């Protein structure tokens, strides 16, 4: 497979239906401050869901929320009315344990009722602890075991090239997750097939399940790792919605190469007691902590 369809910035948008019908993302997402507030609503909702389920992955939800707000708040070409619109951009949450944040972003974009979020992990709920595309519109891949997203994303990006289509594929991975070798297999194939329609975002929060990444398995020099695997790489502040929006909209960084965006983040971002605390990987907030979080985030859950 060596066909080369140039990725242009002129991409198709979903025919007919407004992309943002029923969406909480209401067209003002160009404003980084509004995006920031929407990100905080994702945070607050995800924490409320974790509190509801007594289970979840708070730290990683919070570190990824700005990326999700920026993606679903405008960067991704999607049509919630036609979740399987063939030319949609693909977003894959490889760090599937942060399903609560993804579900919230999908609901905010209008893929389903926000009320559904209240069923997180309930018996027979469509909102499993890890995303299931057979249950919910908008979910692209059933993730949960780490290291599955990037290989699938590579397949999506190759498919777009094969079909001569210009949609892009975004995949969000954890940083600890990159210890899985499957990612490096996928990275090598992405560069070989010159997948400049593939954008990997690494949620570089420097923590994994049990400890800091560098205490567990050192990931640095992470940007150089990706470069030697053939990616165009940039490192940005993963909580700066303006930068995120600019870089994600503008990707690829380089024609003919897959893009890797290392989003430097803080695990537990925005909630003082959770920030940078290993235990908040899967910490569950109490009612009290929820109130504190709402204050600090200046946000209410979207449900």
């Amino acid at each position: 497979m060596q066909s080369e369809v140039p990725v242009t910035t002129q991409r198709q948008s979903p025919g007919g239906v407004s992309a943002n019908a029923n969406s909480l993302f209401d067209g003002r997402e160009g404003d980084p401050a509004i995006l920031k507030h929407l990100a905080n609503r994702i945070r607050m909702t995800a924490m409320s869901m974790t509190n509801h389920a007594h289970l979840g992955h708070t730290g990683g939800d919070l570190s990824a929320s700005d990326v999700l707000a920026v993606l679903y708040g405008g960067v991704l070409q999607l049509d919630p009315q036609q979740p399987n619109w063939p030319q949609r951009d693909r977003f894959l949450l490889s760090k599937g344990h942060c399903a609560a944040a993804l579900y919230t972003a999908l609901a905010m974009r209008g893929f389903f009722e926000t009320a559904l979020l209240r069923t997180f992990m309930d018996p027979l709920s469509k909102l499993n602890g890890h995303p299931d595309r057979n249950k919910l519109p908008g979910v692209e891949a059933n993730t949960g075991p780490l290291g599955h997203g990037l290989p699938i994303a590579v397949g999506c990006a190759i498919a777009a090239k094969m079909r001569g289509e210009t949609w892009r594929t975004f995949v969000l991975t954890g940083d600890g997750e990159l210890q899985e070798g499957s990612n490096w297999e996928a990275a090598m194939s992405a560069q070989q097939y010159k997948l400049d329609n593939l954008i990997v975002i690494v949620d570089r929060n420097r923590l994994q399940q049990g400890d800091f990444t560098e205490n567990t398995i050192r990931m640095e020099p992470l940007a150089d790792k990706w470069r030697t695997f053939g990616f165009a790489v940039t490192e940005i502040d993963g909580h700066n919605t303006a930068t995120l929006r600019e870089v994600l909209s503008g990707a690829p960084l380089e024609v003919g190469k897959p893009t890797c965006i290392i989003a430097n983040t803080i695990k537990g971002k925005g909630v003082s007691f959770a920030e940078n605390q290993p235990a908040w990987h899967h910490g569950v907030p109490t009612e009290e902590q929820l109130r504190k979080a709402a204050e600090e985030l200046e946000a209410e859950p979207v449900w």
Partner: protein
Amino acid sequence: MVTPPEIAAEESQPSAPTYTLGPKADCRDAFSQTLVELAGSDPRVCAVVNDSVSSTKLKGFMGKYPERFVNVGIAEQNMVGVGTGLANGGMLPFVCGASCFLTARAMEQVKVDLGYTRSNVKLCGMSSGMAYGQLGPTHHSIEDIAWTRVIPNLTVIVPADAAETEAAMRFAHATDGPMFLRISRVPVPSILPKGHVFEPGKAVLLREGHDVTLMANGVLVSRALEAANALAAMGIEARVLNMSSIKPFDEPAVLAAARGTRGIVTAEEGLRAGGLGGIVAEILATKARNAPPLRILGLPDVFAPTGTAEFLLEHFGLTAKGIVDASVELVGSKLPAR
């Protein structure tokens, strides 16, 4: 059970074999030719390989459809993931590699990305069983059926010859959902007619008989037919069923065999535990009343010693003679004692 038209009429009476064994062929040729044909009529069809262009016999495909041919290198996990993404992106991928590596190395991807996700991806496990012979147990896939058949949503097919390989490929192409096809490189005699159509969940009746039922798939089917000939000469009429459809499985065919014959012998190129024989045992033990005895032919709980595929099949009694012996043991010889 699929009853081919030619023998439907005479189904109930023991008969001379309707299927005779034709010239031997490597099923990989039928596999690759069919894939090229499917790609010709369906632009979604594409192939994914792991540095296995020649062992999957896909040089022709690669030459004809280079833009729909993906070689991910030596990386089976990625291979299955890429297949999943291709399906998500609207393509129809056939993911092809040595069965030993495809199943074992990518087991979690097969479970999650295919089975759980229900991706429309076709896995083609090449050179399965002990086909790699002397290359040894690392290259054998004697557990692949036991492993894949317990993955929900995954269809599992073990074609018996070139015609059925083609039929299974066409079925895989026409039917939505994840599938595992197990394709040998051990040359096997042709059995089924050109144009044979694969029906999921249906045993293919190859020969009628009421003394013993022989159930086999893959490389063992022709051997079961040979065994049936030899048994006939001894006065034992064997029903021969090709159990190519491992999942879904033809439960009624097993129950019919339990009612209509005095013993069942299964034969497969894999472990005795958990495979074809295991499925038949589960059905007999849970659903049959007064089931006749079952003999499961396959590998005991060991890795194979060094030897060619042919040698190893012989070594483990996976031969016409092995099937005959097991049958006689079960239902006794009808020949007058000398």
